């Protein structure tokens, strides 16, 4: 008897939630506000809830989220609440997170990384979505004829590294090198995209390029060893797995005296000679400003062009340069080595 009651209660709860869903999904009514102290819905004191879906714990993504939160808190103060969720590297969990955001009717969704953006796109066509730390929106969203705007509820910022300028940087520092090896993780679409672009730029400058890919962090050492033995210079795109394994790469390339040009500052601090760096924190901050525009000024994401990093700087790693005996021309800012 007790078991039957338990089963009936469970079924009733599920049925209740299904009817609640049907009531909420058609009408635009929002359920009782989640913060009891929120002001009335007049535009002056309106309280906003922003959902942040981050793919994985990672320094660059964390910095972008921090920048985003800072921008909105700077502009809205206590009138904004963040619901920050992290999928811990599981891309199907992004769908669970976005479902939660949609069903609790957040005012805006910030998707940090490609799978998060894709899950958010599928979850809702009404709630505005801002992506960040995504390199190529056209491929990520499956939009052919990408023109810079999505035409629907999605916009955001791209972390596309200034790749042509990075190729020029490599040429400026190592004009006599012939072979460039590009190391990245085969599981990361952004890395493959950067690899395509930089190969074009470097081949135009007269270098021969070769790809060296690994599938996960266990293969980094062996792949790097092969790359170091066959290349004059190594280029590392902004790859998440590379960023977590710079120690291994440094231990292979330093003794082999093969210089490394990195796609971003974190990687350069770990194992690189120089880089043209963007700041993910600034990228997140720009995304936050776009969010403010959408929330308060009712800007339409469909017509907002995807923005890029506001500025980039030439940086070098002094300890790695000293160990390799490389002196750089002026104009480079020093970064503190991370190890």
């Amino acid at each position, binding site marked *: 008897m007790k*078991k039957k009651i*338990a*089963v009936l209660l469970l079924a009733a709860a*599920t049925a*209740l*939630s*299904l009817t*609640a*869903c*049907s009531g*909420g*999904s058609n009408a635009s009514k929002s*359920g*009782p506000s*989640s*913060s*009891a102290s929120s002001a009335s819905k007049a535009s002056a004191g309106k309280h906003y809830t922003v959902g942040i879906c*981050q793919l994985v*714990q990672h320094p660059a993504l964390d910095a972008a989220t921090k920048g985003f939160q800072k921008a909105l808190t700077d502009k809205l103060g206590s009138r904004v609440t963040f*619901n*920050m*969720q*992290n999928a*811990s*590297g*599981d*891309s*199907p*969990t*992004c*769908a*669970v*997170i*976005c*479902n*939660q955001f*949609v*069903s*609790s009717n957040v005012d805006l969704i910030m998707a940090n990384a*490609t*799978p998060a953006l*894709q*899950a958010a*796109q*599928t*979850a*809702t*066509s009404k709630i505005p979505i801002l992506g960040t730390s995504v390199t190529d929106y056209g*491929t*990520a*969203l*499956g*939009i052919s004829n990408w023109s810079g705007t999505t035409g*629907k509820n999605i916009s955001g910022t791209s972390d596309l590294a200034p790749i042509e300028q990075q190729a020029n940087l490599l040429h400026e520092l190592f004009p006599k090198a012939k072979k460039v090896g590009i190391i990245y993780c*085969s*599981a*990361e*679409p952004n890395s*493959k995209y950067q690899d395509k672009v930089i190969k074009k730029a470097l081949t135009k400058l007269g270098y021969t390029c070769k790809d060296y890919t690994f*599938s996960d962090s266990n293969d980094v050492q062996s792949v790097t060893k092969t790359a170091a033995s066959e290349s004059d210079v190594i280029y590392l795109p902004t790859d998440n797995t590379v960023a977590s394994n710079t120690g291994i790469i440094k231990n292979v390339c330093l003794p082999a005296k093969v210089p490394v040009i990195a796609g971003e500052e974190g990687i350069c601090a770990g194992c690189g000679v120089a880089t043209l760096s963007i700041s993910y924190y600034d990228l997140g901050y720009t995304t936050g400003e776009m969010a403010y525009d959408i929330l308060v000024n009712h800007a339409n994401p469909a017509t907002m062009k995807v923005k890029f990093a506001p500025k980039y700087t030439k940086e070098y790693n002094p300890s790695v340069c000293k160990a390799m005996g490389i002196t750089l021309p002026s104009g480079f800012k020093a970064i503190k080595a991370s190890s």
Partner: protein
Amino acid sequence: MDFMMAYLSSLSPINLLMAIPGNIAQGIIWGIMALGVLITFRLLNFADLTVDGTFATGGAVTVVLILAGAPVPLALVAALAAGLLAGTVTGLLNTVLGIPEILSGILTQISLWSVNLLILSGANKAVNVDEYPLIVTLRNVKSSIVTALVFAAVLICILYWYFGTEQGSAIRATGCNPHMARAQGINIDFMKVLAISLSNGLVGLSGGLLAQYQGFADIKMGQGSIVIGLAAVIIGEVLGDALLGKSMNFALRLGFVVVGGVLYYLVIGLVMWLKMPTDLLKLLTAVIVATFLAVPYLRAKSKNSFALAGKRGAQNHA
């Protein structure tokens, strides 16, 4: 105390209830995957690690075919076929080359990584629900639940019928006692390959469904799926035993496996709703699932321990 009150008041039960349908939909899709895991884990007695790779293969094949303009049912059939193929490879590695089962699974899983990269020509491909007629999607959760339930129900009926046929029973016999099965004239190698192949076919199919549901196929979408599958199978069994005890038959077992998948995702939804520090998501999910599984076991032990029997005896005879 104030902090607790503020925290508790910031949790809105309505939000939890509203998020449940989405979790149910995803849970049913993973439940279909768990049906595949049930076949190898319970009927053949080993954990088939191929599923981490097959799940992504199913997703990859489905997305690539849908993007090429194929009708969705055809894409799903292709995902099923790809899964069957992957399972056959694992089975052959084990039976023909004599490689231990878990290792065969791992080898196929590793090879499927490269195969999936080739299929996706990259690490990730989006399938836009606005542009293609997907049958399950996060955009429309209610219809997805219905579709997924229909899939699950049909598959459970087919599996129930199949494992009652002669060939199906031969598979069960092979898993139960291979030596006796061989003595009865059953070709156990063939049965093993067949079962692993069938299991991976189901996993491939569910991978195709999930890729549509979340709107993209990703090279890593299968990672850790064996864990979810096993959790769903075991949760289902524990729940079934607790609710129905001895009257659970094979069809109900299959049904409870899907329920196990749904429960697992409800737990994840609950953990997220609790607004715990996000880094602890996986730890908390594991803790809640472990509690779930431990409670019936501990209750049974507390009722049936020898110590208690001794105490009862002492009371009766005192």
